[in-house]
């Protein structure tokens, strides 16, 4: 546990503290009257430079609270465009922002919230080529991204540059928060030396997320960032905070520095940034697939066979709540229950398995083929492709 220490000296260290204007004294008065912040802490905030990687679910509360708190310079990195499915949780954006680059909408909102601070925008994918250049001017990096390659990239870049990395990640009802890359503290690779193979861990787009969860986790990241800047309190260095919104429980696990860590350990083998897509098993821009020899049927083929009156058995391996959103009137057996309910299926019939996008049903087809089913196909692209190619009345989710 690291207590009562400030952030490592950044380029601004040693410069005389700028003064607050009369208007700023009024704006930040609720900070100034607390001894833990006071004038000294508020001036540290004013001089601080924080980079937020990602302006989505986690980046929204982060950006809002760091801006409101008077962090003097905030960098935003994102390449995405606001879409209507973002609005369920990304509170930086409104209806009128749909279709707008996130970085542009975010910067406008934050400048309106606090015109005194500097907002830098980087409309880009953070990459091995640009990461060190983008990160180098900031004191603290806050990781609010949504994929493993970028998380390893942010970690390695922070360790190489010696910058703290305030980490938060979320899934459905659950969040993980900690501070990596603090001098002497552990890094992301100490916690997880390797990423999961593509496809094994669902993303929020696939698994869903409670809208308020990134709000809570991002706000905790913001609190840690502010504490690192003012050098007060107990930081989450060496502690992994787990939050479960469903059980409404916080738990804390010890996070140790791995002496054999390839990037921050005693015998480092990783001294520059690598190809993170390759490291995470994702090559090129292709969609990650782990299974290749699964027999498939396209939505159009399925439709014409059904129209012909062929006796096809539709197996839906999604969850009950997804079936309620839309369905193809298939027989519902969620993937997780398939092994114990396999006796409900007749292997002599032709079976077409489907899910939302075709991933889970590929697992189901693989499992059933191992169990001896021979006349079975995976619906390519799932019910999403069915909506695109056959019946647009089926809603996409």
């Amino acid at each position, binding site marked *: 546990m690291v207590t009562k220490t400030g952030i490592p000296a950044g380029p601004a260290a040693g410069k005389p503290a700028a003064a607050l204007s009369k208007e700023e004294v009024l704006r930040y008065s609720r900070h100034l009257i607390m001894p833990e912040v006071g004038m000294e802490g508020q001036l540290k905030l004013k001089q601080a430079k924080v980079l937020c990687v990602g302006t989505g679910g986690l980046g929204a509360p982060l950006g809002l609270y760091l801006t409101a708190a008077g962090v003097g310079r905030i960098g935003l990195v994102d390449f995405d465009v606001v879409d209507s499915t973002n609005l369920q949780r990304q509170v930086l954006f409104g209806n009128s922002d749909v279709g707008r680059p996130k970085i542009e909408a975010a910067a406008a909102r934050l400048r309106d919230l606090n015109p005194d601070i500097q907002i830098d925008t980087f409309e880009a994918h953070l990459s091995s080529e640009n990461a060190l250049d983008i990160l180098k001017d900031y004191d603290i990096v806050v990781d609010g991204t949504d994929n493993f390659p970028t998380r390893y990239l942010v970690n390695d870049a922070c360790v190489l540059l010696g910058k703290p990395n305030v980490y938060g990640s979320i*899934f459905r009802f659950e969040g993980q928060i900690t501070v990596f890359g603090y001098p002497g503290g552990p890094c992301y690779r100490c916690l997880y030396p390797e990423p999961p193979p593509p496809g094994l*861990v669902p993303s929020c787009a696939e698994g869903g997320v409670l809208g308020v969860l990134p709000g809570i986790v991002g706000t905790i990241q913001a609190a840690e960032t502010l504490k690192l800047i003012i050098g007060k309190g107990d930081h989450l260095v060496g502690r992994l905070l787990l939050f479960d919104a469903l059980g409404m429980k916080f738990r804390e696990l010890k996070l140790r520095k791995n002496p054999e860590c390839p990037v921050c350990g005693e015998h480092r083998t990783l001294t520059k940034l690598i190809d993170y897509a390759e490291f995470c098993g994702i090559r090129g821009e292709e969609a990650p697939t782990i299974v290749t020899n699964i027999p498939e049927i396209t939505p159009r083929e399925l439709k014409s066979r059904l129209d012909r009156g062929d006796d096809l058995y539709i197996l839906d391996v999604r969850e009950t709540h997804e079936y309620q959103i839309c369905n193809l009137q298939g027989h519902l057996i969620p993937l997780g229950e398939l092994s114990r309910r396999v006796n409900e299926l007749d292997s002599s019939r032709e079976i077409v398995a489907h899910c939302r996008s075709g991933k889970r049903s590929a697992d189901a087809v693989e499992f059933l083929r191992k169990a001896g089913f021979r006349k079975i196909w995976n619906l390519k692209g799932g019910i999403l492709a069915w909506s695109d190619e056959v019946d647009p009345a089926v809603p996409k989710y």
Partner: protein
Amino acid sequence: MAVKVIIPTPLRAYADKQASVEVQAKTVAEALSALTGKFEQLRKHLYSDDGRLRSFVNVYVNDEDIRYLQKDQTSVHEGDTISIVPSIAGGAR
């Protein structure tokens, strides 16, 4: 020894949607074996093909990472809590 195993959200689909499961075990290995015996589909998410615990899944006894104890031979006692904590990456989209 009765110990509680906490199942993380991403793996609950393979454990009958349960948030925690109580098993009888004297070591972490015994506890995980009892768990995967009960829920066969959990096995491929916890272990790689060579039978080793996957490197993106960490296991804790109470608040200690078993990598810094006796790995899966770490002993467990009545009332201990085993946490399975896989890496998750969601955040922006």
